[in-house]
């Protein structure tokens, strides 16, 4: 069964009185365990599509269903709560909470879910170990490199055991070594734990590792290719 099903998604922005179709009738279905990339040139609508799938942005028309739940039938607060329990986010600019340490950043999601403190810290510790940061758990974001911060962001995205992780240009701010390490780590999590990853990217390194590549042009999916990825 598909984790994500979208039907006839349309997003029209009003830019100085001129309507712009950022997403133009997108039907997409993503199954559990996929490692997919949405690619396309700048302005093709990748991030907008990702934001709509993640419930951050509302479509002008069309539906998004996640594990059978119609995302936009929920009100704003219900949608925030839905995100907390079902969707993990990794942002281009890491977006960690600067005043919290790595372990606190990861545990924060679990605390918001109302889990006991001890359990939160235990799970956060395990996740940070799984992304190779066991020696950095008490460091604040400004004490970590870009690659390390993005690993913390991945650990945070996985904390709530989400149905899928949306990663918007996750390697855009990383050097090639950090990018490769991050992609290795995410690919391993995908393979071992069947975590579904959906990337929006135009980074060829990410595209090369994806098993499914959807190409977006002018808000439409112009190709949808499933293939064996290149190994690192």
């Amino acid at each position, binding site marked *: 069964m598909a984790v994500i099903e979208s039907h006839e998604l349309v997003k029209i922005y009003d830019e100085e009185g001129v309507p712009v179709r950022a997403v133009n009738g997108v039907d997409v279905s993503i199954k559990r365990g996929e490692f997919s990339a949405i690619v396309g040139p700048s302005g093709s609508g990748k991030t907008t599509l990702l934001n709509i799938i993640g419930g951050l942005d509302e479509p002008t028309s069309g539906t998004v269903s996640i594990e059978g739940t119609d995302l936009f039938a929920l009100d704003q607060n219900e949608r925030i709560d839905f*995100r907390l329990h079902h969707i993990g986010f990794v942002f281009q600019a890491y*977006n960690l909470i*600067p005043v919290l340490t790595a372990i606190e950043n990861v545990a924060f999601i679990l605390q918001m879910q109302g889990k006991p403190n001890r359990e939160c810290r235990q799970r956060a510790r395990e996740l940070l170990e799984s992304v190779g940061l066991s020696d950095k758990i008490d460091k604040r974001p400004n004490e970590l490199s870009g690659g390390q911060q993005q690993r913390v962001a991945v650990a945070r995205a996985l904390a709530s055991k989400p149905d899928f992780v949306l990663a918007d240009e996750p390697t855009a701010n990383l050097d090639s070594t950090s990018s490769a390490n991050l992609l290795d780590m995410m690919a391993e999590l995908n393979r071992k734990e069947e975590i579904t990853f959906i990337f929006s990217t135009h980074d060829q390194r990410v595209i090369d590792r994806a098993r499914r590549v959807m190409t977006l042009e002018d808000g439409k999916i112009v190709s949808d290719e499933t293939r064996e990825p290149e190994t690192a």
Partner: protein
Amino acid sequence: MIFKLSWKNIWRNPVRSGSVIAAVLLGTWAAIFLSAFFSGMYEQHIRNELDNHVGHLQVHAPEYNEDARTAHYIPRDDSVARIIRQYSFIHSVSNRTLANGLASSSANNYGVTIIGVDPDEERQVSRIHEQINTGTYLDTTRRSPVVVGEPLADRLKLEIGSKVVLQFQDVSNEITAGLFRVVGLYSTSNAQYDETHVFVHKKDLSPLLGRSDLTHEMVARVDDFHRADVYADSLDAMLGGVVVESWQDVSPMLRYINSSLDTMMFVFMAIIILALTLGIINTMLMAVLERTHELGMLMAIGMNRSRIFTMILVETFLLTLTGVPLGMLFSWGSISYLQDTGVDLSIVGEGLREYGLGTHIYPIIETDHFLYLALMVAVAAVLAAIYPAWKALKLNPVEAIRKV
């Protein structure tokens, strides 16, 4: 979790947090201290007027209040005084003989009220005897002594030993006069009063008016001058043939000053609290707008709006919780110190005298008023946090994340 995040957030910018704490501290201090300062100033003004001039209660013949002629004296003054003294709330009573007339020296003359007193009785109700700057009070062996205010002495060019003729109407409305010698010059905080009132012996004045012992006015001190209205009413109901008035009745201006204190305090507090509120709104709004991107991210990863709202409120609450007790401590310290030493305003002493005030203001505040003001500042500070927190709620996560 929210508490911990709020606590860490307020220390991410210590200067800004420090400025909010300082604003709340100053606001609390200003609200409490200014309230104490003005309360002290008003209380002092009223006490000065009561102690030196008005007294707490006054008794007159009903006709005297209509027409202050010497013929309108209090009949059977001894028995009236005896009855008044029986009341437990009465501290002391002084019988006065009054005459409005003209004070003349070789240099000039001026309209005055001549107050004839028994110095021993008068000491119990007024503090004029403590305000003698030159010479002595009336307890002297010299014949026909008079104590005059310094402004009047200047006007009439009088000094100790100078002769002054006091001219007035007797009980038969005939013009009469007496020769007095200046034995003392007094100065109270009310320059206008000092210029128009002179004190002589009752036993010297009464015969000039045509009777051996005349009383036009009884002045009484009570145990609590704030309750003078109640005491006056009960005495007035008890005594016939006379009118008993409280200081509030005798001096409507003092009553007005007393009642206007609350209004003035309200206006002052409103200004202080408004300034404080705007300061907090401005600073906390900066704190929110500066974190737009981060707040958007928090919403994106699942922090709901009520938690964001609470987080901003808690941040302000924590800052307020630091600022208010510090402000209370500072105001308590400054009031405690200055209620003994006083705030020295001698640099504007002349101006203050015009308003019946001394050169030192002694701030006073009651405990419940102190706590009430601190609570008001704290509530205002927390209310001020609502707008920035509400503003945070209006953020759209997608737009907020785009902002760096």
